């Protein structure tokens, strides 16, 4: 599977709430950030968690967000950031 995003791309995390196991934290859903690293292709934790060890590998990225975008009442400094590993199927491009 070829990576859809490259470093520097603006992306948004899908606002989805599947009831099962996933590794996309609730707090970042719907938030916009920037791809800072393509970590490679990894098996999907949503498959592995239910015993499917041979599912397809999917691209995974580190996405950086501004803390002031992440939390409405963020009390720290304007330049503070958070970086999260997110699988490609959780991301959509942001039209900028």
């Amino acid at each position, binding site marked *: 599977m070829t990576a859809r995003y490259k470093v520097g791309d603006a992306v948004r995390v899908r606002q989805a709430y599947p009831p099962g196991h996933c590794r996309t934290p609730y707090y970042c859903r719907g938030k916009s950030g920037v791809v800072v690293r393509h970590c490679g292709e*990894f098996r999907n934790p949503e498959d592995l968690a239910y015993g499917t060890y041979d599912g397809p590998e999917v691209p995974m990225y580190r996405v950086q967000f501004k803390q002031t975008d992440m939390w409405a009442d963020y009390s*720290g*400094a304007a330049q*503070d*950031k958070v970086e999260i590993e997110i*699988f490609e199927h959780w991301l959509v491009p942001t039209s900028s």
Partner: protein
Amino acid sequence: MSDHHHDHSHDGYDVDPLHHHPPQPDLEDTPLTHHQVMQMAVAELLIEKEIISADELRRQIDFMDTITPARGARLVARAWVDEGFKSRLIANSKAAGAELDMDIGPIPILVMENTPKTHNLIVCTLCSCYPRFLLGIPPDWYKSRSYRRRAISEPRKVLAEFGTDLSDNVGIKVHDSTADMRYMVLPMRPEGTDGMSEGELANLVTRDCMVGVSVPGTTSAS
């Protein structure tokens, strides 16, 4: 975290992981908990079924005991005295570890360098992912509800609770270990350590510095 205060010295896991010796009379008042019984039962069943062996279990525990934050500290100290090594450590910690005959394990560990402008902090909000091959087993506070909840959203307050006050001129970058990477912080070398040997420098590097809740001082913490 733990509510088991009694002394488990009778366990002698390094000699006899399966406890086939009789119970000691002075421990009759401290029965094993439900989960401890379950642990022993599952381990014995797995051994009886030859899925694991007692020897493998013993060796795995011995191996885990060898993994301490001294490993991470050794990498940090080398990076402080060798700029080339520092670049290689940041680019590929697995290969850099191999230069020191250190296996950092199957999971990629990304080394995040603190600078005068950026301080890094590691958390796992979803469970307890931690760079175990460099720092060992995570401390209780790392796995605690409060740390998992707040390190991500109010890192400066959390750092202050560890006695670490950062100027607003320094940006904080929090890394949530959500998937297949692990993170270790490369702290800045403290001022006034010019004459120190690599070994002395390594003694300044605490586990907490490599998680990012603290910064190294100029005297050995050990």
